[in-house]
């Protein structure tokens, strides 16, 4: 546990007053206050592991993409030794941006201002007119490289942090790793991206999206009601709109580090597909009836190589379908009903990159199993685009909601209103639940999102 340090905002409010633990409320000014935003850039985005992409985006030596860690641009590059390096995209000479493009391949990142040059590993190569030694003699070349973030690959996903001494990525995931492994570490070759990410700006504070990513199941009922009216969850033939509330039941897992997973009951889908009572089926029969999103039946034997029997049990009954990795990542490993009665799985990751107190960049990666047949990848890609991200019929409604919350949080009165997380689980884990973490079953509640805020609060109030 980190020790609390007192910090007072400019108007005299203690920072620790924003999150009211006894009543599970958060002051709305957290969604708009520039001072809070500035603190977050160091205390949250300077301390946590951040999603930057997938290694399949930079397969070859010299490949690079330019991404953001909080408010800083970074170069994510594969060096000659095959390792991926994350370098601050700021020239140590006079602060010019080193790479001004989105992606490419080069062994020499050359600053266009005065020509200082750097390797994909960030090492300083030299400055033009070597005999004049224009980088001076005060600092050795080793100290003039681009600042390096600490990098880890998890299922090929690139995470980085500026906290060089802090917890490892595994420690950061904690108990949630047991579940995340069922998504990202389940197959021989792992996932790949189906292309570069979609990117668009939403005029909203990053936390409006961030707190939702911590498994806000409840909003689906109202904000995404169309899914039951004419969308993939509508019952054909009965005229009326389908009730989405059965989809709200399941198991929710949260973590002291703000990660969250919504595990949704697969029983109805398996029953529909197999015509059999899921309670009568073995794990293998259930996998056969409905393979995990993005996997084919041929790939199923791979699961046993990577996962335990307990993990498989969760995957076939209550698999994690949506949730988040603190602070700003959403994952969706969803089972989408198709018009012909079949189910198509989709696998996506989003990052909600902060771009000022009232702006975020929505970055949407569409993933698939490397081993999956091209035909499946093509179908996943089209349906992902139609339901999620820029034009996605589901997420259109999310990105239209967050700006209103952000604007409301600017009002002299509105900023003192609170976000409420008072729908508390009273259940605990289902009997025999094999997984770790903070686990509750039943209708979706506010606990996972509340735990997201508690970790935000802990980081914001930690002693530097």
């Amino acid at each position, binding site marked *: 546990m980190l020790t609390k340090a007192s910090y007072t905002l400019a108007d005299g409010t203690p920072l620790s007053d924003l999150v009211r633990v006894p009543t599970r409320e958060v002051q709305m000014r957290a969604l708009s206050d520039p001072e809070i935003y500035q603190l977050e850039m160091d205390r949250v985005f300077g301390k946590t592991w951040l999603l930057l992409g997938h290694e399949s985006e930079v397969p070859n030596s010299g490949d690079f993409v330019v991404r953001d860690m909080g408010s800083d641009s970074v170069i994510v590059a594969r060096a000659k030794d095959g390792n991926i390096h994350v370098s601050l995209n700021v020239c140590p000479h006079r602060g010019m941006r080193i790479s*001004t*493009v*989105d*992606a*490419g391949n080069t062994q020499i990142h050359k600053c266009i201002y005065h020509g200082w040059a750097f390797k994909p590993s960030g090492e300083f190569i030299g400055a033009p007119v070597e005999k004049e030694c224009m980088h001076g003699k005060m600092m050795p070349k080793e100290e003039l490289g681009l600042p390096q973030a600490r990098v880890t690959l998890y299922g090929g996903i690139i995470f980085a942090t500026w906290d060089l001494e802090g917890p490892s990525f595994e420690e950061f995931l904690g108990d949630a790793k047991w579940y995340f492994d069922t998504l990202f570490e389940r197959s021989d070759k792992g996932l790949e*991206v*189906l*292309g*570069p*990410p*979609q*990117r*668009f*700006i*939403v*005029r*909203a504070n990053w936390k409006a999206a961030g707190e939702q990513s911590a498994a806000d199941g409840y909003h689906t009922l*109202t*904000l*995404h*009601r*169309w899914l039951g*009216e*004419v*969308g993939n969850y509508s019952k054909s033939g009965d005229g009326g709109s389908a009730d989405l509330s059965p989809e709200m039941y399941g198991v929710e897992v949260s973590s002291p580090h703000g990660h969250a997973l919504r595990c949704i009951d697969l029983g109805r889908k398996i029953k529909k597909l197999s015509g059999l009572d899921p309670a009568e089926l073995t794990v293998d029969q259930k996998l056969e009836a409905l393979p995990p999103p993005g996997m084919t039946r041929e790939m199923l034997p791979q699961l046993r190589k990577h996962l335990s029997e307990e993990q498989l049990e969760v995957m076939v009954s209550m698999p994690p379908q949506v949730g988040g990795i603190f602070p700003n990542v959403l994952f969706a490993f969803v089972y989408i009903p198709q018009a012909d009665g079949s189910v198509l799985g989709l696998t996506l990751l989003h990052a909600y990159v902060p771009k000022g107190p009232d702006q975020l*960049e*929505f970055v949407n*990666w*569409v993933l698939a199993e490397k081993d999956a047949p091209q035909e499946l990848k093509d179908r996943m*890609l*089209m349906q992902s*685009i*139609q339901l999620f*991200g*820029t*034009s*996605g*019929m589901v*997420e*259109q*409604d999310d*990105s*239209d*909601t967050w*700006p*209103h919350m952000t604007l409301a949080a600017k009002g002299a009165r509105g900023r003192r209103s609170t976000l409420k997380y008072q729908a508390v689980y009273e259940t605990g884990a289902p009997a025999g639940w094999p997984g770790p973490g903070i686990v509750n079953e039943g209708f979706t509640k506010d606990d996972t999102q509340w735990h997201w805020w508690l970790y935000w609060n802990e980081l914001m109030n930690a002693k530097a």
Partner: protein
Amino acid sequence: MSAAQQVAENAPVIGNPIPVGAEVYNRVVGFLYQEATLLDTIRLKEWGATLAPDLVYTVPLRQTRPMSQQAQSVIRTVQHYHDNYRSIMGRIMRLTETRSAWAEDPPSRTRRMVSNVQVFATDRPDEFAVVSYLLLTRSRFDFPDMDVISGERNDLLRVDGEGFKLVRREVILDQAVLGTPNLAIFL
């Protein structure tokens, strides 16, 4: 003609430009104006009736790339839209037949300015390749910001009675990071 249109599946061979003011040219411009009116006045079902059943409707991503790699600035793997007739009709159904398509309810106020129209004959007598510029302004709620979407449309139109049907549309947008919170509107 853009590379996009040349490589598109089942794309016809693009032939000679049809001069500005020619009868076919004028009919194409009329179609584009009428289409802009239908979309701006949210007559989406009427717009849907102008789509061909073999429609391919795509909006590639853009990336900032060096001058020497401009071909790679258009991304056709992951795209912003990747639709066919069926999925576009599904989108129209969501917008017109539900009471919860919140991204466009209340609807945006939009203007589609269509200009720089070039029409080309193809190796099919009943199909014309059309390039046009699109400048789309979008205003939502009481927000003072006006979202601006600009790009080039590469269309394929098929003669249908007195009018046309849209067979293919690819919109090459100008922003690598879109400045609008979603594409709940058609381009």
